[in-house]
């Protein structure tokens, strides 16, 4: 993508998953896995005569986000109606913000390949989530569409950036940082399906701005951007025009599809929501929320480096996922060897999580159990190699490491007596190698390898080496040979 000036701006919609109820009514916001249309009331169903009643906790949560993104807070914020017809909107308008949003003019610092960059935030505002359309099978072949209003009215925070990102990698870095900030604030859990969605604006020098809608996970943003850059670059190369339009991300086919041209843009007829009064945000309230902000990822990274002597890279990997960083800190507090503990978390544990495509939260054990495992290594009860295997089994079964070791006969064989038995067996079965080893020290290692294999890698390699060497020396002495 070198040589092309790419400008990317993002609009991120994040559900406030920390709330128990919806934004404008008292229905439960816990809709995942529920039968359709059970978390509904006159207000979120948009029944005639119903009115929105603001959940003040939602404002507080959004304010946390705005402050964490270094925004200027409007002292008076106003809700607007965004008018458009769509079956997932029970009132055929969405309560959102337009003029006088919660906050404007913030920034976030990202780091791509060790290079820091500031991404400006244009605005942070609040709005309600629409319901969910449910199809039978694929969207284009479904014989009908069903609507589930359980999601209707869930509080959303929309974060809009300036077009400051210049590559899909930067967009990805921004989204990871945003997600980590939201998780550190405990406002939004990005690991829940559909809790963070994105619209993307992208333009390439010489082209025009194209909007891509409906990217339902942050992970797909990078893919959609890469596709769109390729598409636009090819058009420009062929001397064709990039049309100013809105496109739709088809996640199944991995392509963007034209949705509507600029001339067909919707006129949302925004106007101030008359059923809600402007919300005054006092200095006291702002200060109260600001002073309650937890440690944010950037501060945490600095502390991890300082407190545990981690590298900047290690700290970054940990804080990209709050749960991972929490896991590490807990582990380090119990086990007390931060460098080792960090390595276990970001190399071994993270690899397993990615491989199984699960989240830290899905683990069926706590840092305490991992600490127990590492203590077993420290005490020489199991080998480092066995420990990695046990960790995998822990992820799979949730069993305690001691139980796994016992059940599978995993232990560390470090008694000379016991190792000697295996050595005898190997010497019996590999007479040729023994003869070779008598003549050449180098072959000793091959015998050690065989012994270890025989013990299913449970024997202590150092002791095993000592025992094998001693035997070979004895054999040489028997034959009156000096050391080879």
């Amino acid at each position: 993508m070198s040589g092309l000036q790419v400008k990317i701006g993002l609009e991120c919609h994040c559900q406030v998953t920390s709330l128990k109820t919806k934004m404008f009514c008292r229905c439960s916001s816990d809709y995942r896995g529920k039968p359709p249309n059970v978390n509904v009331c006159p207000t979120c169903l948009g029944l005639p005569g119903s009115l929105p009643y603001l959940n003040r906790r939602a404002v507080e949560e959004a304010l946390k986000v705005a402050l964490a993104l270094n925004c200027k807070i409007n002292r008076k914020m106003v809700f607007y109606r965004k008018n458009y017809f769509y079956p997932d909107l029970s009132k055929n308008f969405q309560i959102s913000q337009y003029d006088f949003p919660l906050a404007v003019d913030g920034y976030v610092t990202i780091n791509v390949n060790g290079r820091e960059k500031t991404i400006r935030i244009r605005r942070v505002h609040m709005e309600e989530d629409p319901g969910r359309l449910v199809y039978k099978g694929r969207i284009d072949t479904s014989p009908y569409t069903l609507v589930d209003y359980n999601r209707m009215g869930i509080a959303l925070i929309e974060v809009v950036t300036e077009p400051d990102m210049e590559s899909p990698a930067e967009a990805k870095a921004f989204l990871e940082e945003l997600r980590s900030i939201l998780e550190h604030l405990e406002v939004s859990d990005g690991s829940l399906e559909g809790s963070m969605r994105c619209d993307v604006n992208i333009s390439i020098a010489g082209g025009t701005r194209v909007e891509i809608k409906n990217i339902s996970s942050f992970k797909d943003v990078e893919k959609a951007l890469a596709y769109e850059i390729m598409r636009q670059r090819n058009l420009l190369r062929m001397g064709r025009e990039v049309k100013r339009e809105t496109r739709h991300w088809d996640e199944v086919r991995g392509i963007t599809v034209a949705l509507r041209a600029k001339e067909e843009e919707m006129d949302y007829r925004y106007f101030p929501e008359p059923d809600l009064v402007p919300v005054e945000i006092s200095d006291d309230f702002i200060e109260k929320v600001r002073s309650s902000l937890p440690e944010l990822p950037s501060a945490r990274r600095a502390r991890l480096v300082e407190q545990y002597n981690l590298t900047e890279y290690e700290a970054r990997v940990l804080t990209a996922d709050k749960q991972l960083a929490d896991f590490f800190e807990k582990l380090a507090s119990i086990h007390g060897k931060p460098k080792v503990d960090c390595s276990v978390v970001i190399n071994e544990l993270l690899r397993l999580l990615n491989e199984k495509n699960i989240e830290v939260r899905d683990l069926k054990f706590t840092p305490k159990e991992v600490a127990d495992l590492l203590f077993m290594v420290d005490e020489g009860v199991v080998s480092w190699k066995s420990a990695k295997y046990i960790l995998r089994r822990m992820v799979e079964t949730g069993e305690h490491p001691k139980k796994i070791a016992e059940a599978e006969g995993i232990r560390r064989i470090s008694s000379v007596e016991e190792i000697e038995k295996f050595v005898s067996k190997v010497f019996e079965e590999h007479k040729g190698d023994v003869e070779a080893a008598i003549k050449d020290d180098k072959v000793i290692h091959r015998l050690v390898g065989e012994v270890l294999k025989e013990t299913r890698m449970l024997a202590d390699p150092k002791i095993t080496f000592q025992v094998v060497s001693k035997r070979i020396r004895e054999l040489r002495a028997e034959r009156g040979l000096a050391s080879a």
Partner: protein
Amino acid sequence: MVNPLTLTAKEIAQQVSSGSLSALDVVELYLDRIRRLNPKINAFITVAEEQARRAAEEVDKAVKKGFRGRLLGVPIAVKDVISTKGIETTCASKILRGYVPPYDATVVKRLKAEGAIVIGKTNMDEFAMGSSTELSAYGPTRNPWSLDRVTGGSSGGSGAATSARMAPTSLGSDTGGSVRCPASFCGIVGLKPTYGVVSRYGLISYACSLEQIGPMTVDVEDCALLMEVISGRDGFDSTLIDYEFRWSYEGVKGLRIAVPKEFFSEGTDERVLESVWRVIKLLESNGAVYEEVSLPLSRYALAAYYIIAMSEASSNLARYDGIRYGMPYDPSLPWHEAFSKVRGEGFGLEVKRRIILGTFALSAGYYGRYYLKALKLRAMIRDQVLSLLKRFDVIATPTTPFPPFKLGEKIEDPLSLYMADIDTVVANLAGVPAISIPAGLVDGLPVGAQFMANYCREDVLLTVAKCVQDETHFDKLVPGVAKA
């Protein structure tokens, strides 16, 4: 036996409370009147015969167990724009035919908690858009004073039902005069409260920033009683303010009355003006003082009112698409065609006219020219009204510029129909309370005098009304048809 022609709500509650009347007796008495009179007048869309009987039996049982309420056994006719649990609520529109709300409006809940009984749902102009109650999908309501004349609107059913004593009291809603105009045309008392003192939860929105539910009664003290019950915060309507209704009558001595000349100009029927002046002089003779003043911006009130009301309506009425309730949609059509078909067939002509005009006024490029300008004008008008109310306790005007007109007389000419609201919309724009009281008969037809007061000063309006009632006994005015 009791005489329903003179019985007040207060007296009914007292008698039911003392056991000299049962709630069921009261309900049967009024159901019988409805059976006889409604076929001529068409005041009710739904007579809740069964529900009312059941509710009366419940009340009687509760009374025996010691339950007391301020409206014990009082039948109330509720405008069909107010949601009633288990009773069809249509807004006089085909599009809501068959819609039975699963919840009670706050006002209905409060009335029931005091022992009141919803006896039926009254006719109105479709979605409260009109000033004559001719624009109903269920046919026009006829004025009990002259069956070939209109009742005024949009709460014409409530006005006629109360005037003909088919119910001792009723509720209307007032967006631009919809309580006061029919009160004036039907010869009863109608109060539009201060914006934000009566919950709109359950009131099916036409123009939410303007409207309030208000009592329509024969007797001033009944009006006060209803206000006492229905006003105050409910945790569902965000626009409610802190308010406690209090009123004790101490006469009008020293009351300062402003008489703005713009409301007494050539456009108004001379006989109406004479009637209003008679009321003002009568108050003067009881110790009030009046002064002729000017409210120059009032000439723009109607234009500002219609732009704001139609704009809000275009958004409020978007939800009627047939997929959740009301008129069924055709599932074989693509969703936008299904929506269009339901809305095309379900809405009446005037509703469509207002949706289209409102949509236009909110459109990109016109928003500033119409909606925003109307809002600015509204603020200026409010300031002018408030500055007048610094020097005066009340502002006196006619309620409507003409007496009740003939059915069909203005129906072909929407602009002349809109003129019916010219004196009433000022109070809605300013948010101040306003009352219409009977000012006598013109050729045997009732006309009304309107008084506006400062925010939350409903008590002053009731004091004026009480003085006039004591002097003129307008509560004894009964249309001939009701005596039969």
